[in-house]
C-alpha cells in the first residue's frame, strides 16, 4: 500500500469535490453505527476476555508463533478503575 510518491497532481472539479463530501458524510454514519454495535458487544466481550485469561493461564499465551507460555494467574492484568471497555478508536492515537 501507499508508496506516497505515487500521486499525480490534478484539478478536482466541483462534481468530484461534492462526491468526496458525500462520501465523508456517509462514512461518518457508518462509523457511528459500528461504534454503537461494538459498544453493544461489551457484555459478551467481558466473557470472551475471561475465557482468554482462562486459556492463557492453562493452555498458554502465544508469545511467538506456536511457542506458548503459561501466564501465572497473579500476572493477569487488572482493569483500570473507571475505564470503559473501548475497542473502536476513531483515529487511533489521534482520537484520544
Amino acid at each position: 500500500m501507499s508508496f506516497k510518491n505515487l500521486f499525480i497532481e490534478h484539478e478536482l472539479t466541483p462534481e468530484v469535490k461534492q462526491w468526496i463530501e458525500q462520501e465523508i458524510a456517509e462514512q461518518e454514519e457508518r462509523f457511528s453505527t459500528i461504534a454503537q454495535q461494538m459498544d453493544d458487544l461489551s457484555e459478551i466481550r467481558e466473557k470472551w476476555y475471561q475465557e482468554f485469561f482462562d486459556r492463557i493461564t492453562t493452555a498458554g499465551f502465544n508469545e511467538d508463533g506456536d511457542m506458548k507460555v503459561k501466564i501465572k494467574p497473579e500476572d493477569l492484568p487488572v482493569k483500570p478503575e473507571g475505564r470503559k471497555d473501548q475497542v473502536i478508536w476513531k483515529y487511533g492515537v489521534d482520537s484520544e
Partner: protein
Amino acid sequence: MARPHIEPFCDRDTHFKDMTLPGFARGMGYKMLSFDVDTGACSMTVQLDGGYRQEPGFPWSELEMIVIEGELKVGDRTCRKGHYFFVPAGYCMPEISTDQGCLVLMMYNTGEPSHEPANEHHPLAQVGLYHDVDSYMDIPWAPGNVAKPSVASGCLIKLLNYNPISHAMTFLYCMTPAFYQDNISYHDCAEESYHLWGTSWMMQFGEIPTGGYFWRPAYINHGAFASEYGCIALGRTDSKLFNHFHYNPWTNPTENAHRSAARLYKRDPLLYKWAISYDHNHPHGPEDFEDTMQRRGDEQGHDTKHKSDGKRHDHWHGHHHHHDDSPHKHD
C-alpha cells in the same frame, strides 16, 4: 486525519451505488469500505455489470485491484478470481471489460477514484512498478512468519506487493480450519483486510464473514484470533508490520504507542536518544542523506526523483521552504 477506524464492516449489508465520477463508464457500482477524509483515497467493493467496457486510461492515484468473482478482461487477457493488479499513478491500462459481469476489490491509495482516458502513460508514471499476477494459481502459500514475533502456524500468506522503502505490504492470507492464536496484537502501522471468503473471529470485534472488512489505524488492540472453518482474505499494511503481542485487553492506543517507543528505547537506545534528545524529530522524519545529497545528474540542486504525497511538498530537494503556519524551522 486519514481514514477512521472501520471495524468490522460487511459489504453484504449494503447496496451498490452507481459510480458517477467523471471518466468511469456506466455499469459500475460500488460499496465504499473506507475513505480517507484528507485525500479521497479509498477502498471499494466494485461490481461491473455484464457488458461493461472502460476505455483505456490511467488513474491519478496509485491503484490496487483484485478480482473477487467473475472474469475481468484487461485488453485481450481474461483475468479470473484472485487476479491482482498494482497500477502506479499515471499508468495507462488497456480497455477493461467484462462479458458476464464481475466483482472487484479496488483500492485507490493516494487520491480519489479517477480514470483519465488516455492511450499512453502519463510522463510522471513510474511505469516499472506495474505488476499483476494470478494470486490463486501462480503463487504458493508460505508460512506467515514474515514478521517476528510471528502469527501461529495455520495462518499462511502470499505476498502480492512490497514497498522496499516503507515495508508496506499487500498480501493474501488464509487461516486454516480450527485456527486459533491466543494473544492480543497491535502494530505501528495501519492495517486493512477484506474477507474474500470465510469467517474469522477476533476477541474485540466478533466474527468477520465473507465480505467482511476492516481498516484499523495503528496501535489498536486486536485478538485473540480464531477461525472455525477457515478463511481467505486480502490484507494490507501502510508501513512495516511488527507484531506487538501482549495479554492486556484494556490498554488504549496511546499506552500501546508508548510501549512501542519503550521497546525501541530498549532495543536501539542510542538511536532513540539521538532522535528524541536533540530535537531531531522533524515532523516529516529525519533526513536521509541518500535522498538529499547532490548528485551529478541533479538539475539546479533538485532531487530529480521528487517524492510527494500530493498534499504537501517534501523537503528532500536541496533547499528549504517555510510555510507561514509551520511550527518547525531549519536552523
